[in-house]
C-alpha cells in the first residue's frame, strides 16, 4: 500500500477521534485535503533534491491523534538557548501547544486549537488558505516541480489538530521578539503533524524565532516533523521569522512555509540549520501587491550524513517589489545539501528588484551539493541577478593565516565563520544575531552536539 493510502485509511477510520480533539475550523478542511492527497499523492523526489518525501512518509509512524497528554513539564525540559529573548517564550511539544490558556496582550500567541475555537471567524478566514492552493508557477514545464509538496500539505491539513498561532491585529506592534520552542519528543517512532498560522494585519509589526529541537531519548525512535506554516502579512506590516534547527540524526523534517505579502509589507525569513537529520524546507513567497519586500536567508552547517534541502520559490506578482535571497552551506564529511531557488517575475511586475545568491563550501570530496538557481522574467523594466557557487576553502588564505602562526584547524574555523558572516548579519534581531554567531562558532569547533543550546534532558 502506498504511503498516502495508508494515511487516508487512517484518517477514514479515525475521523471522529481526530475531530473530537481539534476544532471545527480545522475539521472543515479535512475532507477536501483527503481528496487532494488521494489525487496528487506525496511528492517523489523528481525534483533533484536529495530527499524523497514519499519515502520519508512511508515509514510506520505513530501519530498522537487521541491527544494523549504529553508527559512533560516544560520547566524540566528547557534551559533557554537565547536568554536575552526569553521574555515571551512559547512551547510546542510535538504538535501540541504546552503553556495553558492564552492571555490577552492585544495580540494572540498560543494554541492553534484554542484560537480556532475562540476566534473561528478569523481562523477560517486564514487557515489553510495558502496551503490548499496548488502553486501556480506561470510555467507548465516546471509545474510538477513546483507543485511538489502539495500532497504533503494536504496530509498535514487532513490530520492537523494543534499548533501555534500568532495573530497581531491591525496597527499593533509586538515590541519584543517572540520565541517558540518546538520540541520533538517520543520514545517510539512518531510523526508530529505541526501547524503554524501567522497573521500580521495591516501596519502591524512582530518577530518570531522558532527553535526546532528534538530529544534523543533512545537510539531507535525516529521522529518526523511534518510542518505547514502559513504567514499572512498585511499592508505596510513588518514580520521577521527565524527558524533555528538543532535536530539530531534520527529526525526528519518536512517543512512547507507559505508567505503571502500585501502592499509595502516587509518580511524577513531566515532558515538556520545548525544540525539536522534529514530536512527538506520548501518556501513559497507570494509578493502579491506593489512595494512588498522579502529577505529570504538560509544557512546549513552539516557533517556526518546530515542532509538539508531548501527549495524556494519567490513569485513577483506585482510591480516595485524587492526580493533578496541568500543561502549558504558548509558541508563536511558525507553530508549532502541542495538549494533549488526559483524566482518568477510575472508580466507587469515592472521595477522588480530581485537578487539571489547561493554559495557553498564542500570541505571533503564525499560531500554533495546541488545548486540550481532559476530566474524567469516576463517583465521588461527589472533588476535581477543570481549567482551560485560550490567550492572549497581558499587555500591561499589558509596558508597566509598559517604563516602567521594560526593553527590550520583554527584558520579553517575562522574562514568558515567568515563565510557565514553575511548570512548571520542579515538577522534583524540583535540578541539572536549574537547568539547565532556563538552557536555557529561552537558548531565549527565541534563543541555543539545536538541540542546543547537548550539543555534538553
Amino acid at each position: 500500500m502506498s504511503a498516502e493510502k495508508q494515511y487516508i485509511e487512517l484518517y477514514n477510520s479515525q475521523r471522529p477521534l481526530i475531530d473530537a480533539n481539534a476544532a471545527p475550523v480545522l475539521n472543515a478542511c479535512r475532507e477536501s485535503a483527503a481528496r487532494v492527497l488521494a489525487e496528487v499523492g506525496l511528492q517523489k523526489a523528481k525534483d533533484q533534491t536529495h530527499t524523497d518525501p514519499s519515502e520519508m512518509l512511508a515509514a510506520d509512524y505513530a501519530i498522537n491523534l487521541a491527544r494523549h497528554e504529553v508527559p512533560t513539564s516544560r520547566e524540566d525540559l528547557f534551559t533557554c538557548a537565547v536568554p536575552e529573548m526569553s521574555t515571551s517564550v512559547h512551547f510546542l511539544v510535538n504538535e501540541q501547544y504546552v503553556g495553558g490558556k492564552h492571555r490577552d496582550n492585544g495580540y494572540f500567541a498560543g494554541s492553534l486549537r484554542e484560537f480556532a475555537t475562540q476566534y473561528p471567524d478569523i481562523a477560517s478566514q486564514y487557515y489553510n488558505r495558502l496551503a490548499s492552493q496548488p502553486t501556480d508557477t506561470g510555467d507548465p514545464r516546471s509545474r510538477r516541480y513546483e507543485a511538489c509538496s502539495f500532497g504533503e500539505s494536504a496530509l498535514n491539513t487532513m490530520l492537523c489538530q494543534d499548533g501555534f498561532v500568532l495573530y497581531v491585529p491591525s496597527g499593533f506592534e509586538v515590541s519584543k521578539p517572540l520565541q517558540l520552542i518546538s520540541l520533538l519528543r517520543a520514545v517510539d517512532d512518531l510523526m508530529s503533524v505541526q501547524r503554524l498560522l501567522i497573521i500580521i494585519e495591516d501596519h502591524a509589526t512582530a518577530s518570531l524565532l522558532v527553535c526546532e529541537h528534538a530529544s534523543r531519548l533512545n537510539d531507535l525512535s525516529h521522529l518526523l516533523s511534518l510542518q505547514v506554516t502559513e504567514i499572512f502579512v498585511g499592508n505596510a506590516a513588518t514580520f521577521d521569522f527565524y527558524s533555528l534547527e538543532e535536530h539530531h540524526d534520527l529526525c526528519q523534517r518536512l517543512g512547507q512555509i507559505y508567505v503571502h505579502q500585501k502592499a509595502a509589507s516587509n518580511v524577513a525569513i531566515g532558515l538556520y540549520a545548525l544540525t539536522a537529520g534529514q530536512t527538506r524546507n520548501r518556501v513559497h513567497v507570494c509578493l502579491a501587491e506593489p512595494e512588498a519586500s522579502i529577505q529570504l536567508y538560509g544557512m546549513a552547517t552539516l557533517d556526518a550524513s546530515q542532509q538539508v534541502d531548501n527549495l524556494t520559490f519567490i513569485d513577483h506578482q506585482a510591480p516595485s517589489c524587492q526580493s533578496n535571497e541568500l543561502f549558504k552551506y558548509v558541508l563536511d564529511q558525507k553530508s549532502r545539501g541542495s538549494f533549488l531557488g526559483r524566482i518568477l517575475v510575472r508580466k507587469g511586475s515592472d521595477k522588480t528588484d530581485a537578487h539571489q545568491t547561493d554559495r557553498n563550501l564542500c570541505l571533503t570530496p564525499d560531500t554533495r551539493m546541488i545548486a540550481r538557481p532559476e530566474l524567469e522574467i516576463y517583465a521588461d523594466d527589472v533588476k535581477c541577478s543570481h549567482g551560485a557557487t560550490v567550492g572549497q576553502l581558499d587555500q591561499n588564505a589558509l596558508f597566509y593565516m598559517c604563516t602567521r602562526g594560526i593553527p590550520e584547524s583554527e584558520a579553517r574555523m575562522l574562514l568558515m565563520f567568515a563565510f557565514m558572516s553575511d548570512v548571520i548579519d542579515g538577522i534583524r534581531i540583535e540578541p539572536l544575531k549574537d547568539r547565532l554567531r556563538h552557536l555557529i562558532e561552537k558548531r565549527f569547533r565541534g563543541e555543539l552536539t545536538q541540542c546543547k543550546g537548550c539543555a534538553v534532558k
Partner: protein
Amino acid sequence: MSNPLLEIKNLHASVAGKEILRGINLTINQGEVHAIMGPNGAGKSTLSAILTGNPAYEVTEGEILYKGKDLLAMKPEQRAWEGIFLSFQYPVEIPGVSMVNFMRAAVNAQREYRGLQPLTATEFLKLMREKRAVVQLDNKLANRSVNEGFSGGEKKRNEIFQMAMLEPTLSILDETDSGLDVDALRIVSDGVNRLKSAERSSIVITHYQKLLEYVQPQFVHIVYKGRIVKDGGPELGDRIFAEGFDWIRQEVEL
C-alpha cells in the same frame, strides 16, 4: 664567533613538476641582513615559499636547518611560532575575518607555543595600537577584514604591521617595496629597521635600490636560474643597479 640561524644546503625544489631551485646554498647568521636579487623567474619567491612551507611547492633534494632544527619537517604555523615571518609579495585578502581577530589568533597561538598566557583584550588592543603607530596604519584598516579593500601600499604596510606584532627572529621581505611610493617606502623601512637586533636576521628580496639604502644589508646574493651565482657585499647591489643582470648572465653562461 657567528651563530648560524638558517642553513640552506643544496636545496632543490619544484612547483607543478617544474624544477625552480637547483641547489641553493645559503647560511644566515644571527643579526645579519641579507639581500637576494636576481632577474624575474630566477627562484627568489620560490625560496621564500619553501622557507614558510607553502604546500604548493615540493622540495626534491637538500635540507634546511633553522636554529639547528629540521625546518622542512615543520608545519607552516610551527615555523611561525619558531619566529619565521614572510612579508608576502601579494598579501592575501580574507573577507569576513577582521584584522583584530586574525592578529589575536596569531599572537595568542604564538604565546601558547612559548608557554605564555594569552593576552587579555586590553593588553592586546594596547599592543595593536603601539605597533600600528610604527607603520602609521590607519585605525580604520585595523577594524576591517584582512587586506580587503586595502590599497597596494596599505597591504604592504599591513605586512610590516604584522611583522611588528609577531617580532620574528627571521623575517623575509618578498618585494615588500614594490608598488610603494617614497613615503610609504620610508615607513616600511623604518618598521624593518626598528626590529633589527643582534639576535634577529632578515632576508630582503628586492629589485630596487631605495630599500637597500634604507635597510643596509651586509650581504648580497644573486640568484639566477635556481642557484646563487654570486655573493658579495653592498657593492654588488650597487653594480646590479648600475649595470643590470646582463653581466651576471654572461659570466654564468660562459
